């Protein structure tokens, strides 16, 4: 057998071009007021804060900090907005939602660049995932607006009223779409509070509403920190709370709402198990593992942060995973070749750093590929922990960063036991070529979503939500509508 001749030339030095998406397409205003009753208004609190780009720490815009009076004004505007909006013919409501969906599509480059600038996520993700899905959610729910009677036959569905919606910083515009689209489709009005670190795409969305000539008060957007959110939940004028964020805040919201009769849905944290069986398509499973935990820097509530590997393939799997990690490109979120962008905030970076240190202290083995971190901004390299025991903090707590904890199992039953051994239950992944085993596992996994041979896939028609401390209620699909309706029949 002849082996191939040794290389006679030096091989090509292969470098990718910086391929930055132009940021000229977005022009932020210097200051953004609150969007209340279809108008942009100065905050009565008189307070402002700055939203920065986590990749460069440069300030992007000043944003109003809504105080109690502002919250009151927003809820008041939503109340009168509800009167108009809920009385519209359902087909008219659909028309506005279709309009919003189309405007999002038309402005998708601008919104994608804004999302990457404000939140730090790679442009290829905001361009290929966040924006198309956000538009899809509006399209999907526009279709339901005049068909609610068919979704819930003989139950006479009615809107709830004013929906208070608080969304996180990991998918700012997409979470907005998940909340606003079903609320509007069902005839509710909305007071939305985006996250403190990523308010800008929500404020651009206010402009989208204006462009769509949405009736005043149907959507109100107030910006601020946790205190603004708490004020909103406390307000007596709200009829519904929808929250996506940490389990800790979710519990506080539940305490606040106890006894008030305000229906609420909570989509909270997760510590998903990504379970890889020895008969899987290994190279594609590697892609799924990488997508599961490094997508959006691991700032994903349903991230596959616990990798459960059948022990018989641990070694080849880790070899391939390390090899793959070395090809990940970390850096400028606006570069189209970037795989891993910036950590969303200094506070989050500190939390990730602290948990990774705990993992090392508890005796897990850390692996990070050689990877240069930019000087300014908040960055964390892709990280893999092996030799992780179920009892370690990194196996139990949600890290919300690009950190994977690898554990092993021997039998399907053991995989189920380990996967379910968590306070959370948002999602899980199963990698096997055996169809019957996928179904067997899905029956037993206590998780709201079970992905088979893929991960982090979303569709507006597919309900999403958690078990246990990952929250309750579903978003998307017919189930998601139910959370914004009351039934008279």
């Amino acid at each position, binding site marked *: *057998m*002849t*082996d*191939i*001749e*040794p*290389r*006679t*030339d030096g*091989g*090509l*030095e*292969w*470098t*990718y*071009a*910086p*391929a930055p998406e132009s940021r000229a397409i977005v022009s932020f205003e210097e200051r953004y007021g609150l969007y209340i009753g279809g108008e942009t208004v100065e905050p009565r609190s008189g307070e402002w804060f700055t939203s920065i780009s986590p990749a460069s720490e440069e300030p992007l815009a000043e944003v109003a900090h809504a105080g109690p009076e502002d919250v009151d004004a927003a809820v008041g505007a939503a109340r009168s907005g509800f009167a108009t909006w809920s009385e519209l013919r359902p087909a008219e409501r659909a028309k506005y939602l279709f309009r919003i969906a189309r405007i999002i599509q038309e402005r998708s480059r601008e919104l994608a660049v804004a999302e990457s600038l404000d939140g730090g996520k790679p442009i*290829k993700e905001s361009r290929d995932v966040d924006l198309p899905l956000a538009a899809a959610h509006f399209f999907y729910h526009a279709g339901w607006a005049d068909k609610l009677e068919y979704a819930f036959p003989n139950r006479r569905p009615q809107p709830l009223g004013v929906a208070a919606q608080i969304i996180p910083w990991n998918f700012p515009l997409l979470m907005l779409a998940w909340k606003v689209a079903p609320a509007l489709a069902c005839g509710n009005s909305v007071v939305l509070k985006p996250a403190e670190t990523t308010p800008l795409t929500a404020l651009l969305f206010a402009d989208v509403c204006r462009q769509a000539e949405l009736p005043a008060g149907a959507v109100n957007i107030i910006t601020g920190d946790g205190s603004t959110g708490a004020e909103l939940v406390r307000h007596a004028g709200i009829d519904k709370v929808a929250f996506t964020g940490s389990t800790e805040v979710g519990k506080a919201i539940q305490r606040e709402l106890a006894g008030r009769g305000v229906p609420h849905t909570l989509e909270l944290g997760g510590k998903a198990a990504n379970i890889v069986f020895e*008969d*899987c*398509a*290994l*190279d*594609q*499973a590697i*892609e*799924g593992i990488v997508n599961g935990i490094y997508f959006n820097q691991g700032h994903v509530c349903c991230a596959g942060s616990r990798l459960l590997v059948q022990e018989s*393939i641990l070694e*080849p799997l880790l*070899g391939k995973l390390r090899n793959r990690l070395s*090809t990940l490109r970390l850096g400028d979120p606006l570069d*189209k*070749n970037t795989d891993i962008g910036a950590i969303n905030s200094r506070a989050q970076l500190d939390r990730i750093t602290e948990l990774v240190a705990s993992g090392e202290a508890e005796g897990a083995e850390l692996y990070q590929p050689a990877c240069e971190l930019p000087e300014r901004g908040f960055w964390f390299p892709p990280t893999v922990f092996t030799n992780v025991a179920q009892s370690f903090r990194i196996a139990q707590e949600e890290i919300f960063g690009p950190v994977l904890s690898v554990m092993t199992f021997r039998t399907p039953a053991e995989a189920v036991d380990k996967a379910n051994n968590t306070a959370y239950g948002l999602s899980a992944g199963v990698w096997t*070529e055996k169809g019957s085993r996928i179904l067997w596992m899905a029956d037993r996994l206590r998780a709201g979503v079970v992905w088979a*041979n*893929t991960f982090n896939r979303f569709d507006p028609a597919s309900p999403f939500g958690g078990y246990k401390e990952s929250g309750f209620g579903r978003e998307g699909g017919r189930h998601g509508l139910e959370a914004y309706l009351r039934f008279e029949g």
Partner: protein
Amino acid sequence: MEQATTPARTAEPFEPRLTRIGAVDAVALEARAADLAKRSIKRGSKLEALDLIVRMIDLTTLEGADTPGKVAALCAKAMRPDPVDTSVPSVAAVCIYPTLAGEARRRVDGSGVHVASVATAFPSGQSPIAIKVAEARAALELGADEVDMVMDRGAFLSGRHAEVFDQIVKVREACGPAHLKVILETGELGTYDAVRRASLLAMAAGADFIKTSTGKISPAATLPVTLCMLEAIRDVHVETGRVVGMKPAGGIRHSKQAIQYLCVLHETLGRDWLTPQRFRFGASSLLNDVLMQIRTQKTGVYESPDRFTVD
């Protein structure tokens, strides 16, 4: 009773551990290939990449109408692709039918351009093995130094894997030190699982290169099928240290496509495979497109296709 022994060739290349045949997930494989196709390379690297693509081309003519005259023209083009710009290198090889190997050898001798001859009842592979071996041997005697054999898909698809293996081993032995490329004809295999199995089989039997297609069947080379084969090559390399080359062939007509293949190659096997010793393009019309792009990179303007020779 005689003890069954593992044939030497199955055991040898896969030490210390049998390469996992495993499975391939079509959806995820295609998604990965599509994702890699979106990478853009540095402007400075582009000219180098185009130069490399020229050096990786097996300039091909495989027609019933091929004549010594046609092959002579092809060889001239192979040795000096761009008569105006002498800095453009020669291609890796010319790829022709066995009867024309002698003509090709006379034309390219001493130029460094290899003569690759298809053999083993190309393109179907449906001939008795003795004839296939004789054909490979004849091609070499006529002057070929690389043999592109076709895998017997009839045997493979009817589950006679051992027979496929034995055939490749026999041709391998007939080839001696000459380079052996095994054409899987992925367009006839139906699934990526089958492509992966065939790739591992061909490598185990002693292929120096694995090649996607004859060019006679559609689909020929695609990005996902190439990724699938490169992953098999990587697994064999990781497990055994053996180096096997890759040749996508058919359907690659534009520089942009060729660069996408190099991206997939680079991401899967790294810099060490970015060389004609380990990667080839089976193509004909690709060359002129690359020449046009090289000219454009150098001069900043697109020139008329009439300024590039048609051979």
